[in-house]
C-alpha cells in the first residue's frame, strides 16, 4: 500500500480583523498586541499557480505568538506554524 506523506505546518483558515488603517487587531477573536515581524513570500511565479503571501508574526494579548498570512490569490487569511 502506498500512502502520501502527511505534510506538517499546513495553513488553516483564520478570521483576521483589520482596522481602517490596515493594522491587524484580532485573530479568531484574540486581540493582537503587536506585530513582531512582517515579510512577503513570492514563489513559483513562473508556474500557472504562483504563490504570493504576506506573513505577519503576531504577539497576542494573551501572551501567545501566532503567524498568519494573507494569500494574495484569494485575499483570505490563514494561520500557520512558521
Amino acid at each position: 500500500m502506498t500512502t502520501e506523506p502527511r505534510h506538517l505546518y499546513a495553513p488553516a483558515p483564520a478570521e483576521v480583523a483589520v482596522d481602517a488603517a490596515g493594522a491587524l487587531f484580532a485573530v479568531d477573536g484574540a486581540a493582537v498586541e503587536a506585530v513582531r515581524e512582517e515579510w512577503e513570500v513570492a514563489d513559483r511565479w513562473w508556474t500557472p499557480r504562483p504563490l504570493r503571501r504576506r506573513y505577519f508574526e503576531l504577539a497576542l494579548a494573551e501572551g501567545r505568538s501566532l503567524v498568519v498570512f494573507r494569500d494574495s490569490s484569494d485575499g483570505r487569511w490563514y494561520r500557520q506554524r512558521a
Partner: protein
Amino acid sequence: MVRRLEGIGAAVESERVGEAFFAVDGLRGIYGGDSAGVTAAARKAVGGRARIGLGATRLAAYLDARELRPPVPVAILRGRLEGGAGAASARTSPGDLIVALERLGVKTLDTLAGISTDQMADRFGPLGLRALRLARGEEEPLRPRQPHEDLVEQIALPEGTAGRQLDRAVELLVDRLLAAPQRKGRTLLGLRLGALLAAGGSWSVEQGLGRPSASPRVLRLVLAPRLATLPGPATALRLRALGLGPPAADQLELAVGGEEPRRRRLGEAVREVRSTQGAEALLKVLPVDPASRVPERWAALTPFPEL
C-alpha cells in the same frame, strides 16, 4: 487595556477582544484594603468609558459590569458559551441551546440553576452542562495570561563576514541571550536564528533543543550547522528564544556515546508499539524542503523506520 490593568499589578485573563478579568484578592492591600479601591485603580488605568464589575465569578462580574440584576435572561449566556472548550465540535450551538431552553420555559438564570445535572446532560450534552455550571456560579479558576516576553539579541556584521567570524558572531549572540536579565535563570526550549541579507530580504531558521537547556555549549553546537544554510552574505544576525522553560541547575548537555544499546532498545520499542498500535502509530518527521519559504513544504510525516 490588558497591559494597563497589568500596570496596577493585576494578573489578567483576556480571551475576548475588549474583555478582561482579574482577581482582586491580592490587590486590596495595595489599594486601600477593599474592592472599591481596586475598582477605582482599574478605572483610572483603563479610562472612564470602560464598564467594570465585581463578582465571585466571571459571569457575575460581567453581569455587574452591565448592571444586570435578577431575573437575568438565559440569553445572556449565548456570548459566554461561544468560543469555549469544545464549542466548535459541539452538535448544539449556544444559540440553539438558548432557544431550546426558552421553549421549555427556562427563561432566567435562576430557573436554569435549579435544573438537575442529569437532565441537562441527557438533553443538551457538554454545552448544556457548561451553561448549568455558569448559572450555578461554578467556573474554572482564572487563567491569567503570561505577559508577552521577547528574548532576542541582534548583532550587526561588518561587510564580508564569513566562516569562523560567523561562528564567533553566533557565540556572541548566545552569550548575550543567556546573559539577558529577563531570562531570569530560565532554560530555553528552542531558538530562531535569523539574518538580514546584504542582497535584501531576510532568512531565518528554527532549532529545537530536544530538552530545555541554558548551556552555551549546547546552544552553539546546535546552531553552528544551521549557519551553513545561510543563503548569502548577511549584514546582521539575530537570535530569538522560542519559549522559556523552567530554571535548571543541572545545565543538561547533549549526551554522546552508548549509541548501539540505545539503537537496539529503540528498535525493540518501535516493534512493540507497532504490534499493538498499528503501522501509523509511530511516525517520523522527514525534512522535505527545509529551505523553502513556504512552511508546508518544510517537512512531512512518514512511518518511523524499523531499526
